[in-house]
């Protein structure tokens, strides 16, 4: 993981803040982060207060400090742009969260923290990713008993199993999970829910509300090669293997070889950088549109280029080429040119007839997006889903078609950022509390 600021760096960077009136940065965050306040507190040597401002708003404040595309959120609005460049808000935020650990300050274990009165209600949170974790924290802070169900061995979701370790350290995540535990959130890991209606059944048992934040864990595939040989990975399988340290298979597929990554998003960039770190001789990032249309963040794209990744733009993969013994020997491509705008607002790639060619690679990683698993709606048959199996939920509250069931994050939005998932979790928690107030108008305190 990229090193964070030292104390001196954080002080110097905070010194650049113009301490704006009605700080525009504080309006730029989906999760309601208030940099105008926490930087002012830090500047006035109220370091613990600055930490409190971050963590009380967002239990994953450190995570967001590391992973947020701040350049197009809070930092974009920074008034210091008028002087030279924006204050590096994300880095200061991350520093403060790390500094809290260094000085042993926990805002939730402090006389200023008003411990909530425990309530009778319990909520089940399905999935320990960013939306579920933030929803759980928010509910726990309201005195609600929260149980998080997670099918994998550890909480974190995409933070632990998706983002490569050179971008995000799982020890760092562990500290924020500890903060959740200190709020009283109970985790049940290695507890997949599989049966039909099982999510809804939780409502009938001990839980008065359910939040679904299960994310998108089924890779979309380009090639229907069910009988495929070796050499083709989904991004999920590729990154998860790298993440778990069990790099054998991806390493063998990359070391000394030419690798094609298909896709133009952040995950594709992650895969490309992983392939490079695993010793790939050449890594081609194959994208059917051009540089400007790539969904990956600007800094990610630049870093990937700087690391020697070849951007192969305006090429549409159309097939896998296999040689003797079904060994993968190439990726069949057709050159494209940009046509008119498509539904996403981006210009559509149009294949150029007669331009098919073969890129000589031994491994292909498909990073063209993930979707809700095929059977996922069966877990909650009473909840309305879209054709793409995304849950239909109200934008500001996460309410689904089934009273008591809320949802947020990628399973609602489709692919989105961590901070948007955090925003969803928080909003849903507020809606859950409103739901409880309606049911027990005199308050649900035990």
């Amino acid at each position, binding site marked *: 993981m990229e090193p964070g600021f030292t104390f*001196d760096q954080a*002080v*110097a960077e*905070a*010194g650049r803040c*113009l*301490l*704006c*009136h*009605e700080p*525009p940065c504080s309006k730029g965050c989906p999760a309601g982060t208030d940099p105008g306040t926490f930087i002012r507190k830090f*500047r006035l040597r109220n370091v613990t207060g600055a930490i409190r401002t971050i963590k009380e708003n967002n239990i994953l404040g450190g995570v967001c400090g590391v992973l947020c595309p701040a350049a197009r959120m809070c930092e974009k609005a920074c*008034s*210091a*742009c*008028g*002087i030279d460049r924006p204050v590096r808000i994300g880095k200061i935020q991350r520093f403060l969260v790390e500094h809290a650990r260094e000085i042993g300050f926990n805002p939730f274990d402090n006389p200023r923290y008003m411990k909530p009165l425990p309530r009778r209600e319990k909520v089940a949170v399905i999935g320990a990713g960013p939306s579920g974790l933030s929803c759980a924290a928010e509910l726990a802070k309201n005195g609600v008993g929260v149980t998080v169900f997670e099918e994998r061995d550890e909480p974190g979701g995409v933070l632990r199993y998706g983002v490569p370790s050179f971008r995000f350290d799982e020890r760092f995540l562990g500290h924020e999970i500890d903060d959740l535990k200190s709020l009283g959130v109970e985790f049940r890991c290695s507890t997949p829910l599989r049966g039909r209606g099982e999510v809804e059944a939780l409502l009938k048992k001990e839980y008065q509300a359910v939040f679904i934040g299960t994310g998108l864990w089924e890779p979309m595939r380009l090639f229907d090669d069910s009988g495929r040989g070796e050499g083709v990975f989904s991004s999920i399988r590729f990154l998860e293997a790298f993440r778990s340290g069990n790099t054998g298979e991806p390493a063998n597929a990359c070391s000394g070889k030419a690798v094609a990554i298909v896709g133009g998003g952040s995950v594709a960039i992650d895969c490309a950088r992983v392939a490079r770190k695993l010793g790939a001789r050449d890594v081609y990032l194959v994208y059917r549109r051009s540089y400007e249309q790539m969904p990956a963040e600007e800094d990610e794209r630049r870093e990937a280029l700087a690391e020697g990744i070849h951007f192969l733009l305006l090429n549409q993969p159309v097939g896998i080429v296999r040689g003797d013994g079904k060994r993968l020997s190439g990726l069949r491509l057709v050159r494209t040119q940009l046509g008119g705008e498509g539904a996403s607002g981006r210009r559509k790639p149009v294949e150029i007839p007669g331009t098919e060619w073969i890129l000589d690679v031994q491994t292909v990683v498909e990073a063209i997006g993930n979707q809700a698993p095929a059977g996922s709606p069966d877990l909650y048959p009473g909840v309305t889903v879209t054709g793409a199996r995304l849950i239909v939920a109200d934008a500001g509250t996460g309410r689904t078609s089934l009273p008591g069931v809320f949802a947020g994050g990628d399973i609602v939005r489709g692919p989105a950022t961590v901070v948007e998932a955090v925003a969803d979790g928080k909003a849903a928690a507020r809606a859950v509390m409103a739901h409880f107030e309606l049911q027990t108008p005199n308050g649900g305190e035990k």
Partner: protein
Amino acid sequence: MPNKIIDLSVDFCGVRFLNPFMLSSSPVSNSAEMIARAFEAGWGGVAYKTLVSDRIPIYHPSPRMHGYHYGEKRLIGLQNVEQTTDRGLQPNLRDIAWLKKRYPKHIVMASIMGFSNQEWADLAKASADAGADMLELNFSCPHMTVEGSGAKVGQAFDLVQKFTETVRGVTKLPLVAKMTPNIADMNEPAMAAKRGGADGISAINTVAGISEVGLDDYVPRPNVFGKGAMSGYSGPAIKPIGLKFIAQMAKNPELALPLSGMGGIETWVDALEYLLVGATTVQVTTGIIHYGYRIVEDMIEGLSDYMARRGIARVADLVGKAAGNVHETGEFDVMRQGIATYDLDRCVGCGQCYIVCRDAGGSALSWDAEKRRPNLDDDACLSCMVCSFVCPVTGLISFREMPNSWKRKPTVTLG
């Protein structure tokens, strides 16, 4: 065409200096080895670190200093409990002799401090014999560990006169009395020194202060094994105090002695300000503690370019130029009034001006939240100018005089 080097030389108490820039008596002038390097870097003279007799051993508290920082800015102030020299008298005298032999054009002013009348005389004679060009009488160290010395003397004006007389009686060398700022009116001890025979005055020594207190141990800094003290505070933060005292003495026609100014000087601009209010030479320590001897290069170059730009031939022509503009506040023409004026094309929209005008000024600004721009109600502006101090864009907010007919709105009264 050859470079025309600007002549920065000055005459101070009848002694010619290559330039007005001196090391002050402090750790930066502790030995000939150090001072030689300073001379090579460009410094025109030195107030050699205060000599004392060998009768009372000098022990320095440890640690000796504490840096006072402001945000990411280092050393806007420096707290110290440094004493006089802790080297023997003889090694110091040999160093002075070596320096004068090696650098005959550079000025060595020996700083001395006696702990008795006789010691003042002995130290003065010994310094003169070693070849010092002039003497600085240290009446001003605010934190001497030896009873009845330093600023204790400087605050007892009869002692200032008496010890100056004593030294005057044993040497013809020019005498410069160094003043403590830890008094109300510096003219009193300066006049006492003059009556005692001093040829010039140097000021200011450090300001007695407490720069910081430990929050864990409750000990003011520096923490000398569990004890703090009110001790000497120096650096950029005290420049206004130094300028005030120099101007105060420069404006005193009875004193009429050449002045050596110090307190917070780091740049040629600081040095020039001291010259303008009346100093002929300037002395530096904390600036060197922060940046090293090299800063003199920028002082020389900066002052030379300034003089060339303004067509000023001699440093002496700058000395005291601003002293005449230092008035009693009662002399101001308060019938003339003005307001702040904004060049909003350069505004970055931070709104700090709005905050401070509302909370500390005339509440003359309104705020356009959509455009993120302040809007000044001219008639409510107090011309306090606090908005311009917090504005991150230099020169965006300036002062403008209003016509005689203009009337300011009265402050809103509630109740």
